[in-house]
């Protein structure tokens, strides 16, 4: 089994773990330094989940994905009724033992059901397209009213990516892109004031330098002033003097860029590139469509998180509140992503050891 492990995937993951813990130390060493120990614990938990999932046959996931989607949808529908409000948005559900965000579960469940749906068919017929469309649009609608623009966009982009992977005709893709752009005003209409404010501020951060634009201005200053070689470990003034907001969570990239400079940015993006390309390659090499589409979906979520997060802290996109994978502080996001990678690793194992999954006779097996 060890021989079948994908060592490149693991190496890039460990690289990200090391870089993440270093940057997190820089972000929290002045204040809540116990967060660093907590994150180390989350890594341990996450790696445990990762390892365990390496032993779970994909077949079981294939069976579990529909009930999982159904449960996630149910929870999502409960949120507007009994959810807790945090910072103006109703996203959390108190299950007694823990607070959960159903939208986080839905993100993964949607990928699993789309992978399952397209495991035996291509996206080239009316039913083949309409079902996934409904599967994506219903939760997206529930999430955007929470409101959570970031997760909604990730959900929709991931679903679109999955459909493209599943062979959506280019003509339909063009039509849907045009429709998507045309529906932006509708989206704008449904957005809350604070989201509109974020978009407007993005277009001109200087218009509100102490209010909504403050975060972006300070993080761009941090990134830009880092220069090529950076200000040095623990030497970043923007972070050390608390000009950077949420510097250990969503804005942690600014700390890395300020203290490590462009060299650290190149290192981080290289690690990401290796990781994601490796996930895609594992998916490409997989012996069944479910496994392939699963890996593509996971890779899509990673690349979306990375692009949106770095884009938002460097002033390209509005601030939507997505973490930077493996770097930002936060237990549930880290453990979920490691779990997803565990599934990818399982795909790698199964394709090397030729573990059968598909029922014989399936048309696309």
């Amino acid at each position, binding site marked *: 089994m060890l021989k079948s492990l994908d060592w490149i995937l693991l190496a890039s993951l460990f690289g990200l773990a090391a870089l993440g813990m270093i940057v997190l130390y820089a972000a929290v060493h002045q204040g809540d330094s116990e967060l660093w120990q907590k994150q180390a614990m989350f890594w341990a938990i996450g790696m445990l989940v990762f390892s365990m999932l390496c032993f779970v046959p994909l077949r079981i996931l294939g069976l579990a994905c529909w009930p999982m989607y159904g449960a996630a949808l149910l929870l999502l529908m409960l949120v507007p009724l009994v959810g807790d409000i945090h910072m103006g948005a109703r996203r959390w559900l108190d299950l007694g033992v823990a607070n959960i965000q159903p939208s986080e579960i839905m993100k993964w469940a949607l990928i699993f059901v789309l992978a399952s749906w397209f495991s035996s068919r291509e996206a080239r017929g009316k039913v083949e397209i309409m079902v996934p469309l409904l599967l994506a649009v219903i939760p997206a609608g529930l999430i955007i009213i929470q409101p959570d623009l970031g997760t909604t966009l990730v959900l929709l982009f991931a679903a679109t990516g999955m459909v493209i*992977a599943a062979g959506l005709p280019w003509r339909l893709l063009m039509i849907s892109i045009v429709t998507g752009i045309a529906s932006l005003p509708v989206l704008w209409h449904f957005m809350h004031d604070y989201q509109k404010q974020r978009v407007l501020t993005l277009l001109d951060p200087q218009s509100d330098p102490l209010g909504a634009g403050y975060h972006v201005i300070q993080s761009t200053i941090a990134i*830009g*002033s880092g220069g*090529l070689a950076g200000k040095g470990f623990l030497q970043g*003034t923007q972070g050390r003097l608390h000009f950077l907001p949420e510097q250990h969570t969503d804005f942690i990239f600014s700390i890395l860029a300020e203290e490590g400079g*462009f060299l650290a*940015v*190149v290192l981080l993006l290289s690690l990401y*590139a290796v990781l994601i390309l490796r996930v895609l390659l594992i998916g490409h090499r997989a012996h069944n469509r479910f496994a392939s589409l699963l890996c593509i979906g996971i890779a899509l979520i990673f690349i979306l998180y990375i692009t949106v997060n770095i884009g938002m802290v460097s002033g390209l996109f509005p601030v939507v509140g997505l973490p930077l994978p493996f770097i930002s502080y936060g237990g549930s996001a880290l453990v979920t992503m490691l779990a997803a990678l565990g599934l990818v690793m399982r795909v790698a194992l199964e394709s090397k050891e030729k573990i059968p999954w598909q029922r014989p006779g399936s048309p696309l097996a």
Partner: protein
Amino acid sequence: MRNKKLEARQRFDVRMLLFYASVPVLLGLLLFHIMQMQWFEHDKYALQANQNRLNIVPVLPVRGEIIDAHGKGLAINRIAYRIVLIPERVEHLNATLNILAEMLVWTPAKFALIHKRIQRARRPDRPVLLDDKLQWLNVAPLAARLHHLPGVDVEAGSYRQYPYAELTSHLIGYLSLARKKDMDAGYLPTEFIGRTGVEKSFELKLHGQPGHQQEEVDARGRRVAVVKRAPPVMGDQIQLALDIDIQKAAADALGERTGAVVVMDVRTGDIIAMLSKPGYDTNRFITGLESEQWNAWLNNPERPLLNRATQAAYPPASTFKLVTALGALKNGIRLANGSAFCPGYLELADRKLHCWKHRGHGKVTLNSALIQSCDVYFYQLGDQLGMAAISDTAHELGLGEKTQIDLSPEARGIIPTHQPYMMAAFKSSHTKRKKWYRGETMITAIGQGLLTVTPLQMARLAAAIANGGKVLKPQLLAGSQAEVLHQVDIKPEQLQKIQQAMRGVVLNPHGTAHRVLSKAAWAVAGKTGTAQVVKIRRNEKKELSKDELLRRHRDHAWFMGYAPYDKPKIAIAVFVEHGGHGGSSAGPVAAAIIETMAAKQQVNISKGETP
């Protein structure tokens, strides 16, 4: 079936290429964007980061102290702590204020006042003063907890204090915060600037130069470290020639009366005492003077803000007879037989000029006329001398001229002349048209009429008589070089006659100052003056209607003189508004000053110091 499967597989491979490509494309775009920021726009962002973190904060200089001749502080600096709050940096205003109120023991009234002050603050990014003049003992517990109270800061600094505020208010003056004009001249808004007195005259010397420091601040604006520091240049200390003990003795002797006292060193012109009463509390200016208090001072009929020693001019009355006498001696003018007969009045055409002593002095010489202050003698002497010579002599002795003391503004006083165009100095058309009468020369000769002089001018005149005719520049600073502005053109023996007469004023039983000064510790020479109205019969009706107005000018009391007679040391001028008779009202003040001087000298001799 196989075909369909193959077709799907091929399509999947193509789509896969799209995903492979999207990774470097997306990450590459991000990388390009970051490179642009970190490479091409790095300078811009680096500058912004420094602007974020570096604050240039001015460091105010400590103002030079002002001490008296014996080193006693007249204007000193007290170390104190003030508490300021920057509203926009405070997270929970009410909680913060409650903590502060508890730690600093604010009364509910004070709490309400501070709360109001914060709400009225126009700019939330500017500090609001919460409490001031605190000692370290009071602020230490707060300073230790500052990091829990964002937006609150304890500042150390010094504030000006005048230990003898009421005694020295006019001489030392006061400070106030920089105004628009000062800021245009380069002062900082938090700097205090001398507005009157020595604080104003020696502002450049006392003030010092502000320094600055470059501080690293965090996002809340709290100072984290000092990066660079250019220390301020402290202001110079100034030692005055003033002796606060003499000043105090003069003030005690003057009591509650309104007036002025000047004590001057006859050799150097050093100002040993300069008092104007009533005074005012200059300490009130430092914490920000309430406009009610300012208006109260401004509208007080006793005019406490006026420095009566230099800014106010009064009729010199009989003390001016010294000028007439000097002028006569200088110009070789003497009455026939060297004497006059005083029946108590002098008839002049249709008018009758009275002597203050209605019974008359009988036969008087220059000496006895000065001693007894006979008006009739000086009516005649003045008449012979003429207005031009009187005026010239007065100017030569420094009357009608600024003394050039380093205090501004300074009154010049008025020395009238018979020249009609000179009368233009009085803006009134009534006086301008008026013809100069012979009688006016006569009443000017005894110090009445339009004449006015300042107490400082009179002290300087006394000094000039004592020191052989040297008109000195009054010196405020200790150790100044004597500066002779003018040497009066008079023979020593002529001056001696005046000196002897002034000694007679004290020594002679008929002398106007005999009673109060003959037993003084030092031998005093002097001249009294009582500013009284010269009654002119022709205008009687008109005067009666003005009686109330004139009463106010009737009773000013003067004494001017010097001591010790043999070896003159100090010249004194005492002026008491509405004081009554010069000898009995102003004389005791001079006596008190001389007693104190003599006592101090006695102490110094017993200490083995040279007097």
